[in-house]
Each structure stands twice: as structure tokens, then as C-alpha cells.
């Protein structure tokens, strides 16, 4: 079966520290992968998406970057976190026999 994993579930990081969030998909190959952010009390904003290894499209200029080192792995990074980077980060993949976007369980990031 196809599953998506995100970790960690929660993270508290000081301002200026680096960040690495990981997302992996199982049971499929060459999926489209996405990173979304949900700030407190707000909707979901697409940050990055990838249609293949090494292919990253950025939707919003920001303090974050993304990488796709392997077919089913998508990483969200920052060299120096800002307070405004706090939020709920969701990874998603597109694919499967029943076309649709499937979301991971999310990472709650608090920058202090």
C-alpha cells in the first residue's frame, strides 16, 4: 500500500538554528511531491513542489529550501530559522490508482 511519512511530529528550534524536515513516500515511484505550510489561523500555502529527483519548484520566496535527493524523499531545510517560520508543515504526494493528493501527518514547528 502507499503511505507517506513525515518526521518529526513536533519541533522547537531557536531563532538562527538550522532546520531539516523529511518526508518519504512508500509504495509508489516517481510521485509528485509537495511541501505546504499552515501558519496559525491561516490556510495552506504551497512552498515547494517536485516532479522528479533534483527538480524543485519554489512558489514563495522565503527563508526555506527544498531538495529531492531520492525518488521518494523530499526534504525541507533552512540554514537559519526565523520566528516567522513557525507553523504546521505538511508534505503531500500526488499519484496512485485513485488520482489524488495524499498528505502526511504534519510537523509542528515552533521557532523561539
Amino acid at each position: 500500500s502507499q503511505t507517506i511519512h513525515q518526521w518529526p511530529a513536533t519541533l522547537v528550534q531557536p531563532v538562527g538554528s538550522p532546520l531539516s524536515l523529511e518526508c518519504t513516500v512508500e509504495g509508489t515511484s516517481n510521485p509528485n511531491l509537495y511541501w505546504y505550510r499552515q501558519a496559525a489561523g491561516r490556510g495552506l500555502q504551497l512552498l515547494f513542489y517536485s516532479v522528479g529527483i533534483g527538480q524543485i519548484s519554489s512558489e514563495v520566496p522565503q527563508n526555506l529550501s527544498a531538495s529531492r535527493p531520492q525518488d521518494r524523499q523530499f526534504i525541507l531545510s533552512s540554514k537559519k530559522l526565523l520566528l516567522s517560520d513557525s507553523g504546521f508543515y505538511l508534505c503531500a504526494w500526488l499519484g496512485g490508482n485513485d488520482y489524488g493528493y495524499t498528505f502526511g501527518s504534519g510537523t509542528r514547528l515552533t521557532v523561539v
Partner: protein
Amino acid sequence: AQSVTQPDIHITVSEGASLELRCNYSYGATPYLFWYVQSPGQGLQLLLKYFSGDTLVQGIKGFEAEFKRSQSSFNLRKPSVHWSDAAEYFCAVDEAAGNKLTFGGGTRVLVKP
């Protein structure tokens, strides 16, 4: 600009009453349309989706949605809500079949006993 609008930020309904959540989009063609539900602190669960064909779509948990091309709307309905339906609901649009998903601002549903 292309957008997805959910006009109602909050809706409060009594348990057992009907529920309708509104969603409007502004795209040139008929995009792929989705409704997701998010419980507090959780990820998103797909309720239903519309690609083509019958404009009334049935989903999980007793939800349905109706696509109206003339109104560029995709409203979500449930005939009788349960306390467990209290959550935030997001309408989303995939403009170009696999390009990316754009979300509305969400509607938070509170259910009164």
C-alpha cells in the same frame, strides 16, 4: 488572479442539523476540485473530489458536494452533522491536473450539542 474562496470563516451548527460549506473558484477552465477535512493538530483527509461527469459527488463520512459550472462553485453538504464533524474544512483546486493544489482559506465548523 486565480483563487479559491471559502466565504465563511466559521460556521456553528447544532448536532443533527444540516451543513453546507461554500467554495468558489476563479479559473478559466474546469479544474479538478477537492474537499479536505483537518482535525486539530492533524493532517488533511480527503473527503471527496470532482474531475468530470456527474456533478453531484459522494464522499466519505456522509458528505457530498455539487459542482456548478455556471456559478464556479463546489459546495460541500451533509444532511445531518455529528459532533465528530467539528473540524476545519478546506476546498482545493488543481488547475492543471497534477500541477499543484491551491487551497481556500478554510471554514471552521463548530457543532453544538
